[in-house]
């Protein structure tokens, strides 16, 4: 008897302790999908962590650069390092003017000449002790044996703090020299200046002939226009997605118009993108860029039909599916399907479809974009204009679908068969304004086109395009 022989615990324990039952076949498919989603989530978490770490590092580096004025000052100067002997031989031969140019104090012992002839007269050896036009550029400093040499000392080099100082000392009659000086001041980024032209100049404006014991190394740093090879840009953009064509994947049952009497309609929503892009100047006008940019595509389908358990279309028992231009959407089975037009396992519209409330399916697909772009500067002044083009690898990091009715979420799911990696191309016109020597504000209208379909399903060709107005702040290093 129960109370004496076996209590209720024992009965259940013995009979159910090792109870076994084969689960439905679709469950393993769902588990695999869940594992894939988990893997993507983990990958995204890693990317996010790496992104945050990179941003912190970049912020630190930028801050360090900004708060290190000594370094910045030195970097903006044109420096000529003279290893041992300042009295190096420098030849200058400038223009057709025959009048010598005395740039230096009378007691300096240094003579400048503007023609080879006059130079020879002034210095029988055909050389001068003067660095001469090498000092034309602004902010010039001379260093000997690692020490700064002060200006205006006898037998030393003469410094001009600005090109204006120098020009002011030029004889107004020496137009050629003045012109040359102006030109050098504007070019200002090549270490050794070579003038191949011209009728006015006999040969190079500057020609160093270091002695065996001494060598002069002229190192110029770029002036504002060419400030730095490396740059970092933080950008943000409103994104206008192209309207999808409602002609992608269909099947006979799902293409029926909704029972609520309104046609299915899919519209793209505007989103945003943003990220960090590093640039490297490979030429005078050409910049190569790459970085990490977040981007997403969002679309909403209204008056959508759903199909539930249907072996014909391999729809498992715990999901509802719908067709959209981006492919099939798989949602968790809706317990209370009130507004969706449900097709049951007998391919009949279910009673639950008699409601006429509005329904809405939102699809949100998120990418991390790694662009490789080239920008060619058409105009490279304070206001600059450039053409940008490039390709991007887009890594899928988010795939959500939310079905709602009158603003109330009914079920969640995802768009099926989304590719993990898709490629896109973009072209744009970059308009920039240099706020300071290092910081440039840019606005870039850009058109982006996905080259490959976002869906791995061969019957779905979903290649949206986007128009972005990319606004960014660029910081130039060096």
């Amino acid at each position, binding site marked *: *008897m*129960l*109370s*004496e*022989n*076996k209590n*209720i*615990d024992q*009965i*259940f*324990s013995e*009979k*159910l*302790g*090792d*109870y*076994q*039952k*084969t*689960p*439905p076949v679709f*469950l*393993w498919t*769902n*588990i*695999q999908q*869940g*594992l894939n989603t*988990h*893997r993507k989530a983990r990958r995204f978490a890693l990317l996010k962590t790496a992104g945050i770490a990179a941003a912190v590092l970049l912020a630190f580096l930028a801050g360090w650069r900004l708060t290190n004025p000594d370094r910045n000052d030195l970097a903006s100067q044109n420096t000529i390092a003279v290893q041992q002997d300042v009295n190096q031989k420098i030849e200058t031969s400038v223009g057709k003017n025959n009048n010598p140019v005395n740039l230096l104090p009378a007691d300096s012992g240094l003579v400048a000449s503007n023609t080879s002839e006059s130079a020879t007269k002034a210095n029988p050896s055909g050389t001068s002790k003067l660095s001469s036009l090498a000092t034309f550029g602004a902010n010039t400093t001379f260093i000997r044996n690692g020490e700064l040499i002060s200006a205006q000392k006898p037998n030393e080099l003469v410094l001009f703090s600005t090109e204006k100082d120098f020009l002011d000392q030029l004889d107004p009659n020496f137009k050629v020299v003045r012109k040359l000086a102006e030109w050098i001041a504007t070019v200002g980024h090549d270490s050794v200046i070579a003038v191949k032209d011209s009728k006015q100049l006999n040969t190079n404006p500057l020609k160093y002939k270091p002695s065996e014991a001494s060598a002069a190394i002229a190192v110029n740093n770029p002036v504002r226009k060419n400030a730095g090879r490396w740059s970092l840009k933080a950008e943000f953009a409103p994104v206008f997605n192209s309207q999808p064509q409602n002609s992608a994947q269909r099947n006979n049952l799902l293409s029926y118009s909704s029972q609520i009497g309104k046609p299915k309609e899919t519209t793209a929503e505007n989103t945003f993108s943003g990220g960090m892009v590093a640039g490297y100047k490979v030429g005078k006008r050409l910049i190569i860029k790459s970085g990490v940019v977040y981007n997403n595509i969002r679309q909403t389908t209204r008056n959508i039909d759903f199909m539930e358990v249907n072996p014909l279309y391999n729809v498992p028992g*715990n999901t509802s599916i719908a067709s959209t231009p981006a492919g099939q959407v798989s949602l968790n089975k809706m317990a209370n399907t009130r507004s969706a037009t449900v097709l049951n396992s007998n391919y009949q519209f279910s009673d639950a479809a008699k409601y006429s409330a509005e329904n809405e399916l939102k699809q949100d697909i998120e990418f991390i974009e790694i662009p490789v772009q080239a920008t060619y500067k058409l105009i490279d002044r304070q206001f600059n204009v450039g053409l940008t083009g490039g390709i991007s690898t887009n890594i899928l990091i988010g795939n959500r679908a939310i079905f709602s009715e009158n603003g109330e979420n009914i079920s969640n799911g995802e768009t099926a068969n989304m590719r993990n990696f898709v490629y896109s191309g973009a072209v744009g016109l970059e308009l920039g304004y240099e706020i300071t020597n290092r910081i440039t504000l840019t606005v870039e209208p850009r058109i982006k086109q996905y080259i490959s379909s976002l869906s791995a399903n061969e019957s779905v060709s979903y290649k949206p395009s986007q128009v972005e107005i990319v606004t960014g702040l660029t910081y130039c290093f060096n």
Partner: protein
Amino acid sequence: MTNLEETIKKCASGDRKAQTALYNHYASKMYGVCLRYSKDTNEAEDNLQDGFIRVFTKIGQFGFKGSFEGWMRRIMVNTSLEKFRKNNHLYPVEDMVVFEGVQIPEETISAISADDLMKIIQGLPPRYRMVFNLYAIEGYSHQEIAKLMKITEGTSKSNLSRARVILQKKVIEDFGLEKNTVTTTLC
């Protein structure tokens, strides 16, 4: 599955074939566990699915120090308990029955199938079902149950007692005993 340890290691490295083999080997047993903790097959399927995803994502943490099946079973139980806590079922106290000298013959007990008992246990209010399963079938103490379910030991004992009463009542009703031995009271 020839070598469990090797299969587990392969699963930890994400080998899909090994995962399939492991699933095929344990799915039926684990589904049985999930069914006991759920009110119906849909809930059990959800729990089994979530439980296996958790097994495969945490399988690298299994230290080969005990039974792997026991480890999996604990994960399934914990998954079911978490789902229960998340849903926060607040069921009203039901009509209770008090049995006086109810006795079930051995023959009757052996005639009851596991499927019949499963239906009965699934019919229990969620909290009673959890406590009964943990205590009577998994072998947890009231102290452990209280920790797992974040309730007091007294509540655990009370829930167990009530679960037993309901189960007894159902067994008697479904498998035939004199009805005059059962009295119903409202608790």
